[in-house]
């Protein structure tokens, strides 16, 4: 049917059959290395942590972390970029679920629709135990009858005193006690064993957290409505540069970059000399044109730097622009300057440190930009 499907189902199947090496070696032209050359181990570990939570929709029984399908490679790139930009892991998972649905989660979330999936095994265990108890009760009823008959028989026998009598009364206890121990053993042991195994190989964390409060997710619709309200109010009643910036930030958070750019344009008209507005505007414009800074965004950044030559975000964007052009040494210079002016312990500073490392490596190695 669909292209990625058939081709990669085939690839998945071949790999499963252990034939993959030979075939893939022939068809490896499209395959990319799992990790880029300039991998930063800390970031890669976080990418990995998110990637193992996501199903590759092309090779459906693999996670994005394992799959070599081009889509999985792209998604890993997205995860890497988003983490580098400072997004939280949960936010990235939500982003993927919004686009690909709940199925993209390799471990299904515990929610109303998946209660049967999560609770099913426990339900089955309960049913099995119930059946076991019934069986035991029926047997006990039956054996009680047998015992009664046996006693009757015994009394008949006892009419004629026998030397074996003491032995006969002492022995029947044994199997009864043993039987009771077995019943209790099975009745308690089975669920305990099941719980133990579940604890080891199952997902007790998800289950327990699901039993607590349901995670509060922001409804994207709701957020959208609120932002639309804000925009309507600003358009009818007007607002300050800060108000328009707020709208721009909200639009950017919803990844509506062209709309965000419009809002920042209004903010900039009200505050033409604010380096913050200039750089924020440049940032969303760059996002709107596919995360490229070249062109208008770069002009805005340059304007911001003319006003405040030490503005950290403007410097960071200028560095990114240089990196984009393949001028890695220049990028590192910008980023180093940004770092001296950024708050020292924040994620921003950390990210800058990673970027500087990358730029230094590229500059040193003289690698062409990809």
């Amino acid at each position, binding site marked *: *049917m*669909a*292209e*990625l*499907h*058939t081709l990669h*189902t085939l690839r998945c199947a071949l790999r499963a059959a252990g034939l993959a090496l030979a075939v893939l070696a022939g068809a490896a032209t499209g395959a990319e290395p799992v990790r880029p050359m300039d991998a930063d181990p800390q970031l890669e570990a976080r990418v990995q942590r998110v990637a193992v939570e996501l199903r590759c*929709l*092309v090779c*459906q029984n693999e996670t994005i972390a394992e799959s070599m399908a*081009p*889509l999985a490679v*792209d*998604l890993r790139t*997205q995860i890497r970029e988003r983490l580098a930009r400072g997004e939280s892991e949960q936010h990235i998972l939500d982003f993927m*679920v*919004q*686009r*690909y*649905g*709940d*199925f993209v989660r390799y471990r299904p979330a515990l929610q109303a629709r998946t209660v049967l999936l999560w609770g099913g095994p426990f339900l089955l265990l309960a049913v099995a135990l119930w059946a076991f108890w019934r069986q035991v009760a029926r047997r006990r009823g039956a054996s009680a009858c047998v015992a009664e008959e046996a006693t009757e028989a015994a009394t008949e026998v006892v009419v004629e005193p026998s030397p074996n009598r003491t032995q006969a009364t002492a022995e029947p206890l044994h199997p009864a006690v043993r039987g009771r121990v077995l019943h209790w053993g099975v009745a308690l042991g089975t669920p305990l064993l099941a719980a133990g195994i579940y604890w080891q190989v199952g997902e007790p964390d998800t289950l327990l957290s699901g039993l607590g409060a349901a995670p509060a997710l922001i409804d*994207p*619709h709701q957020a*959208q409505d609120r932002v639309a309200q804000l925009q309507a109010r600003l358009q009818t009643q007007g607002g300050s540069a800060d108000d328009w910036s707020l709208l721009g930030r909200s639009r950017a958070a919803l*990844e*509506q*970059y*062209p*709309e965000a750019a419009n809002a920042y344009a209004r903010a900039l008209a009200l505050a033409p000399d604010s380096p913050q507005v200039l750089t924020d505007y440049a940032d969303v414009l760059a996002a*709107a*044109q*596919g*995360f490229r800074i070249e062109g208008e965004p770069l002009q805005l950044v340059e304007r911001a730097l003319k006003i405040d030559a030490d503005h950290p975000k403007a410097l960071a964007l200028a560095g990114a622009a240089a990196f984009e052009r393949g001028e890695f040494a220049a990028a590192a210079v910008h980023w180093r300057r940004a770092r001296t002016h950024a708050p020292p312990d924040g994620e921003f500073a950390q990210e800058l440190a990673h970027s500087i490392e990358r730029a230094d490596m590229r500059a040193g190695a003289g690698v062409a930009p990809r």
Partner: protein
Amino acid sequence: MKRFLPLAIFALLVLMLAVGLRLDPREVPSPLISQPAPTFQLPRLEDPARTLSTQELRGQVWLLNVWASWCAACVQEHPLLLELAREGRWTLIGLNYKDKPEAAKVWIQRHGGDPYRANLTDFDGRIGIDYGVYGLPETFVIDKQGVIRHKHIGVLTREALRDTILPLMRRLDG
């Protein structure tokens, strides 16, 4: 009663398996249905200096067809798209997904022409990810308010077009 219990359980299992086998696990239902279509502003294949944004498509019902020259299945639906374009009523937008522009242009010429009002390029597949694309071809129906109303996964067929997509578009166009 008791004797039929195993039979009943067996029948239930057969029923569930029968239903399960008919489901296609590859048809992942899109969570984007009735959600606002992700916005974009993308360069055109023929003239990368000119862009088209989702904003400019507001007010019309449009089809977004995700394709690529490397997608063998896309060849099958191309004649249908050309037919649809000849009708002239619908705005057909192509999203050229992770393709080389030269290869894409050659492919269009070789397969009977360009059915798209605009053919947009998504070189790195970012917009594809935004739309939850995981197999080619895929086709989205987007309404006048910019809301995704339908997603067709796989090759467009005459039946799907006649029975589902076109009636939906007519209704949306009102």
